[in-house]
């Protein structure tokens, strides 16, 4: 059976998951390219994936723990490193995917393929970095003799999935916005800072008081972190908080996908 394609003026948005699946090899190609290019001409290569959070961990250890004496319930280096591992996925995912369309403008202008593959490939690249850093987390857990409950078996994956999805939602929204309004480029570093300081990485929301603290769960990463730390902590899971985070994740995902799909037909004209 010969395939038949019909090209008509865009009217409604449709999500063609089958088409994404058909083009999965291209997705892997993009991701492979990004990973290969990323550490070309660096001496340490892939080690930068673990070096970056390790260096940050030392900075935070001295700045926040030694001077401010913040209590997070478990050894501070383990806590911040665990947080930074998830943060790495979240922030790299957002930063890279939001720039991804602009940096692929050459290809977008010349070749058709499902445009969602581009931010998705950035996320996939961030995911590889995440897995490497995640492996190092286990080394750290052993060094600090930090007990982890069996709940980690489902808590770690769930936290990762929430982070991945929220990062994808925000990233694809920003990527599409960036095509039309380059302003978001300049807004992004500020937004990333805001996200970082509102995430419980250098502190724990459990040590905060007042109604303000549940507002912090609007940052989807806080819900993910809550679940991520849970097998290591002996606190009650803030269930409302997690629900708020999951809700914002879904909102971001829907906004991102709908706006992306609505504008993607004009990418080649605007980029």
């Amino acid at each position, binding site marked *: 059976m010969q395939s*038949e394609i019909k*090209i008509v*003026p865009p009217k409604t948005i449709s999500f063609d998951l089958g088409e994404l699946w058909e083009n999965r090899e291209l997705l892997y190609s993009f991701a492979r390219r990004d990973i290969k290019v990323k550490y070309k001409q660096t001496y340490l290569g892939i080690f930068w994936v673990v070096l970056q959070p390790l260096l940050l961990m030392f900075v935070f250890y001295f700045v926040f723990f030694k001077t401010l004496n913040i209590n997070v319930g478990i050894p501070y280096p383990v806590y911040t490193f665990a947080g930074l591992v998830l943060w790495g996925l979240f922030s790299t995912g957002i930063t890279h995917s939001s720039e991804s369309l602009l940096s692929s403008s050459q290809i977008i202008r010349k*070749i058709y393929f499902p445009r969602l593959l581009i931010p998705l490939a950035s996320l996939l690249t961030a995911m590889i970095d995440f897995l490497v850093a995640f492996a190092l987390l286990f080394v750290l857990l052993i060094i600090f003799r930090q007990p982890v409950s069996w709940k980690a078996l489902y808590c770690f994956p769930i936290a990762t999935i929430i982070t991945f999805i929220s990062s994808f939602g925000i990233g694809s929204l920003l990527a599409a916005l960036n095509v039309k309004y380059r302003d978001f480029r300049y807004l992004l570093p500020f937004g990333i800072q805001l996200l970082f300081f509102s995430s419980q990485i250098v502190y724990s929301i459990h040590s905060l008081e007042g109604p303000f603290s549940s507002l912090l769960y609007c940052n989807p990463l806080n819900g993910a972190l809550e679940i991520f730390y849970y097998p290591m902590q002996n606190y009650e899971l803030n269930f409302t908080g997690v629900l708020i985070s999951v809700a914002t994740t879904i909102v971001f995902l829907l906004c991102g996908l709908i706006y992306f799909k609505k504008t993607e037909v*004009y990418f080649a*004209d605007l980029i």
Partner: protein
Amino acid sequence: MKPAVEISQLGKKYRIKKTERYLALRDAISDSVRNIFKRNSADKSDFWALRNINLTIEPGERLGIIGKNGAGKSTLLKLLSRVTFPTTGEVIIRGRLASLLEVGTGFHPELTGRENIYLNGSILGLKKTEIERQFDAIVDFSGVEPFLETPLKNYSSGMQLRLAFAVAAHLEPEILLIDEVLAVGDMEFQRKCLGKMEEVSKQQGRTILFVSHNMSYISSLCTKGVLLTNGQMAASGDVSEVINTYIADISNRSASQSWKENEQPGNDVVRLHSVGLVNSSMKTTENFKVTEDIGVEMIYEVMKDNEVLWLGHNIHNEQGINIFDTHSVGTDYYRQPHSKGKYSSVVWIPRDLLNPGIFFISSAIFNHLKNTIHLHERDVLMFTVHEVFDQETARGLSGGDFPGVVRPLLKWQIKKI
């Protein structure tokens, strides 16, 4: 058998904003505020890049798409390859389609030749197994085998092109769209590519849509032709007839062109009356020697006082390559606004600059400060630069082919040390 491509009532409209090309949020905000008070903002105007295109292409047909710069050829290929979407009409494509709007799309300088073959192949729609199967043939065709593990940034541009075309040549789609990709590269390789394309189309019965400015490529490769003029179909049918129509069309307007009162290009600010080519004795001609200055004249009428207007010409060669642009920099009217009235301008393209060949001139009047283009007439003039052998030119006294799009006479110094 059903047609491979069916195009009906196809149209593509672009909205040209007269402000910056890159939108900033500021503009959107200020515009939306302005639009509350004023509907139908006059800042925007519609431009139909393509309009009312109807075409049926049978399987195995090879269609050449010809037309001047800006006639809508590339837009048509972009629509067919789904890079951009139509405003009206519809297209039905039956069979696997690959588009080569550019060779080497997605090549990455940091990756090796081998890595780039895989990357480029999958961007063009090849599966990994297909690339593996064709890998040796691709490497063989490109002739870059010794450098497969070298990063692409260390390749010469010719080698990059060979590699890119080698990947593209081994695509096996049922329908292939090609846009002017042969305009670059050395002659020998161009011939090799053309041979490969003929083999692909004639022996394997592929459907091919081919855009080119080079009529000899079109006539040797294609069976049918379509001529586009200002986004509309001006002629279609047998390829040699369409080429003849095109050549008759462009040679009509070679050495000079003037417009009737109600057909003058422009708007309520400025109108173009005529353009023309003159030699140094101010005689209108379309034939110049390499050693002759080429004067481009323009007569225009300014309809409003106090308008800052700049004039410009684009010079393209036969392959559609933009040789250079020139703007009316350095005249009194560069900073000083025009008052109402008729003006004439002339700009001289110096001798010993262009290599022999056919060249096209587009003319524009615009205001760069406001980013407003009052008129931009494409390929209004055509002229030929001829070789001379009785005088010394940049080639010296050597005979044979002298390559390059330009042939400037440069100052050399040789000293014995």
